């Protein structure tokens, strides 16, 4: 049974689904505090199965199977086709491993929460949707699971739905990603209409690259718009910081490690299409780079720890898109393969260290009585010792601390690819050079604001806010253990995969060579650009040093700098006023909606009510006949009889 992965491929999504259903039905009443068991078991089994899939793919498995015909209509037949190749295997391992660890963490974090069962049901549902998304082999199923993860995100962000801010944040997330999803759907439909009404990846990626350039560009941009929405790129990034209203494990799972990477996965999956459309890749890279820079600027002045991490997520996702967009083909420098693998590698490492950071922030929140404003606590390295070391690991990885941490290696590859794309003679080289510079600057800023947050939280005098009460102690083992494993991954993965290039090689061999060999360069070039590595390492250390100096040595320096540049500070603090601009637009639409409501209520409903009144009026016309007088009734009977006789007579 285990030799053909197609036999157990379907279990990977289905087990969490079953766990979710069981938890939802039996959790609130019967399982209660043990509601986590179905989810943990399912996630664990999925993780094990994902490793089996990885093993099978490494042995050369590359296949898909249609498990169930969803619907057939005319000449369209859509089935639940699941398949695995290198990309899918990597994503599966990421999702299930990180998911399982976060589920274990949640046991401790959500311990006293009344909605315990609901939480685990939703987490299971999310795991089902995400694994289904990466396993999908045609666009419709992909889109279905895309919406599924969006739904779970809504449910989990709005987990504390009694808080108006949480409910509003959930709505905002759903609606903003919906804007991107519209583009995605139109793109899928364009593909469908132009690809002989076929939507499975194999056929589409054979036919689509032969389209005329304009059509290809439009389709690529539409597909990318879905990624912009889901992966929180400019201009649809506004939902991710507000999504921090959800519990910290949720932020770790969905908004750091898995869901937001769905956009990256989509663009990576469509590499055959993007690879032959340099214009679209330029757009992707530009938006990615610009978003990375913008988010880093905003993160400089945030006071909420989780917001800082949210903006850093946006920034890192920008890096991934920058990498995806750097795979332009040109003479002599065929980059398509390397750039995409760099993006996926960064996705992989980012999942680990960002999840670790969010879980640590959750641990801090748990200890501080749900206070996460950095201005209200400090010096926590004496209070929360283990959390401190784990947070430090994650911060180091994020800021790209040289050599030891994984973030260094993956970010480095991206910057190297951007530089190569900017080499003279290739398509859009100036833009790529500019983006490279932007990327380097952002790397420095990343290090700065990460360690700013670290120093503000863990250094300085020991201050604990009043809400903490008795909770100001370190987290229990059930929360620390997953974080430790993630920290191990954040370190080890970089050391193992970074210098050796096993990861990239794996992806190339088991995904790219099988799917789109004609796009790849003839000669496999995997090298490390020592110059870029040194430069980024120096920038990272500089950023860390600056943060140390501004927040440990001279704490007043930060305030002085803020007062010197008041307008820049205000811009950064207020997220460049983007939320306000969107808010004005939304208010305009809300007014229009009010007008429509009035029309619906008074005109449409009014017409229906009028129609409903007609029988009443007819009845009121006929009522006076019943006046209670017997003679009147007899009179009517006689008149009727007389009329009838006369009509018969005169016929």
């Amino acid at each position, binding site marked *: 049974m285990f030799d053909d992965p197609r036999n157990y491929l379907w279990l990977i999504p289905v087990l969490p689904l079953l766990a979710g259903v069981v938890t939802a039905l039996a959790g609130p009443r019967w399982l209660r505090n043990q509601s986590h068991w179905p989810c943990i078991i399912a996630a664990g089994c999925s993780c094990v199965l994902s490793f089996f899939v990885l093993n099978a793919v490494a042995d050369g498995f590359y296949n898909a199977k249609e498990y169930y015909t969803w619907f057939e209509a005319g000449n369209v037949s859509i089935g639940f086709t699941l398949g695995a190749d290198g990309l899918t295997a990597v994503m599966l391992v990421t999702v299930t491993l990180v998911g399982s660890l976060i589920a274990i963490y949640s046991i401790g974090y959500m311990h006293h929460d009344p909605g315990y069962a609901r939480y685990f049901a939703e987490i299971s549902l999310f795991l089902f949707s995400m694994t289904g998304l990466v396993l999908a082999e045609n666009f419709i199923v992909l889109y279905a699971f895309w919406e599924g993860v969006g739904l779970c995100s809504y449910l989990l962000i709005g987990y504390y739905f009694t808080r108006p801010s949480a409910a509003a944040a959930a709505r905002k997330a759903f609606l903003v990603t919906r804007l991107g999803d519209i583009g995605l759907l139109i793109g899928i439909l364009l593909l469908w209409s132009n690809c002989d009404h076929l939507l499975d990846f194999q056929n589409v990626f054979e036919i689509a690259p032969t389209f005329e350039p304009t059509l290809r560009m439009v389709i690529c941009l539409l597909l990318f718009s879905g990624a912009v929405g889901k992966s929180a790129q400019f201009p649809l990034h506004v939902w991710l910081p507000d999504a921090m209203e959800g519990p910290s494990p949720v932020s770790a799972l969905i908004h750091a490690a898995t869901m937001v990477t769905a956009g990256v996965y989509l663009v990576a999956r469509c590499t055959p299409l993007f690879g032959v459309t340099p214009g679209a890749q330029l757009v992707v890279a530009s938006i990615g780079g610009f978003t990375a820079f913008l988010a880093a600027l905003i993160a400089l002045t945030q006071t909420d720890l989780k917001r800082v991490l949210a903006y850093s997520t946006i920034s890192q996702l920008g890096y991934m898109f920058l990498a995806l967009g750097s795979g332009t083909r040109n003479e002599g420098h065929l980059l398509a393969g390397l750039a995409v693998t760099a993006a996926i590698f960064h996705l992989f490492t980012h999942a680990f260290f960002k999840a670790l950071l969010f879980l640590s922030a959750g641990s801090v929140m748990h200890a501080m009585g749900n206070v996460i404003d950095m201005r209200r606590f400090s010096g926590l390295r004496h209070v929360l010792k283990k959390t401190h070391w784990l947070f430090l690991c994650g911060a180091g990885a994020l800021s790209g601390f040289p050599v030891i941490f994984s973030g260094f290696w993956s970010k480095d590859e991206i910057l190297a690819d951007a530089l190569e794309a900017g080499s003279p003679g290739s398509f859009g080289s100036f833009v790529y050079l500019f983006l490279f510079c932007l990327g380097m600057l952002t790397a420095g800023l990343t290090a700065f604001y990460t360690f700013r947050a670290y120093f503000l939280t863990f250094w300085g005098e020991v201050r604990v806010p009043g809400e903490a009460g008795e909770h100001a102690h370190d987290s229990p083992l059930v929360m620390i253990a997953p974080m430790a494993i993630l920290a191990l991954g954040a370190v080890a993965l970089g050391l193992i995969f970074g210098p050796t290039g096993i990861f990239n090689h794996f992806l190339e061999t088991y995904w790219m060579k099988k799917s789109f060999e004609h796009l790849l360069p003839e000669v496999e070039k995997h090298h490390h650009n020592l110059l870029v590595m040194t430069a980024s390492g120096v920038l990272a250390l500089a950023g860390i040093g600056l943060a140390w100096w501004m927040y440990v040595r001279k704490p007043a320096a930060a305030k002085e700098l803020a007062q010197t540049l008041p307008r820049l500070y205000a811009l950064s603090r207020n997220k460049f006023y983007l939320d306000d601009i969107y808010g004005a637009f939304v208010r305009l639409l809300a007014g229009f909606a009010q007008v429509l409501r009035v029309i619906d209520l008074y005109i449409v409903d009014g017409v229906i009510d009028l129609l409903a009144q007609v029988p009443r009026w007819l009845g009121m016309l006929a009522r006076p006949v019943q006046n209670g*007088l017997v*003679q*009147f009734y007899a*009179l009517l009977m*006689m*008149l009727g*009889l*007389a*009329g009838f*006789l*006369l009509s018969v*007579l*005169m016929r």
Partner: protein
Amino acid sequence: MFDFLWEYWAALFPAALGFAGIYLLLPRLDRQYRLLGAALGGAGLLAAGWFLVENDAVLPETILFYAFSALAILGGGLMLAQHNPVHAALSFALVVLSTCGLFLLLAAPFLMAATIIVYAGAIVVTFLFVIMLAQQAGLTSADQRSREPFLACLAGFVLLTALLCVLQKNYDTHKFDALLAKIQELAQAKTEKDVKRVLGDPADRPPGNMSPPLFAELEKSFVDFDRGKADLLLIQTPMPVAKLATFFQDFEEQVQRARNQVGALQPAADLPLSSFSGLPPNKELAKGKVRHEMPARNVAGLGRALFTDYLLAVELAGTLLLVASIGAIAIAARHREGLR
């Protein structure tokens, strides 16, 4: 519409007069129109008598019929017009007595007696008793006013008109009788002059059409009329009066038989009725007779019919009487303490 009016004017005219009369006679608060109403009602009655039930025979039967019917209708009108309920009840008694007279004319002596005893004797007296028990002092709106007089009269008289028109359409034998009279004259013709008197002068008819208009009418009205033969007989010179008379005598017999069938629906011959109920009506009438003879004396025959053919109905009627009497006592009893 106008054809309708013209065809049935004999029914419409008395009905219209009666409508006006009764409308004015119904109880109303102002009493000035009562004389006019009475006059109109009487005129309507006379018109009905003249046009509707036209009869030129002066037999005791006819006179009695006219008298009793006029009395019945007058009584009915009086009953409607009286304010005093006692007077109205007495008028009703008059109606019942007149109707019993009509029963007598229709060879139903037992019914006449039974109706007088039961109806006029028992029921009307009961009504009078109740009027006495339910007396109201002074003038009451129950007696002085009427409810919707116009519409009520309209309903009643439209119904009446419809009924009379239907009756006239089905049973009116005037034209029939005129034709029959002419045929009878032809049957008894002795000379050519008699024939000419009935059929008209040959010189008056348009040339090329020697057939008299009477023959055309006869042909239209009777299927069996052999017009060709009649024409042949007429044309011969000298006119064979005797043959013509014989021909028309035979024809008269046919027509008379048809005349007697008017108004007699023919039920199936195999209806399970015993001979005690009388002869089935589709039995051929004897020559020269107009109506069947009654099989036995009325009371005996009625008794036999009741207790053989209608036994179940008689038993049920008896039960009904019992139940009604118990019911009447139960409804109207005053329930006092200790007294039942």
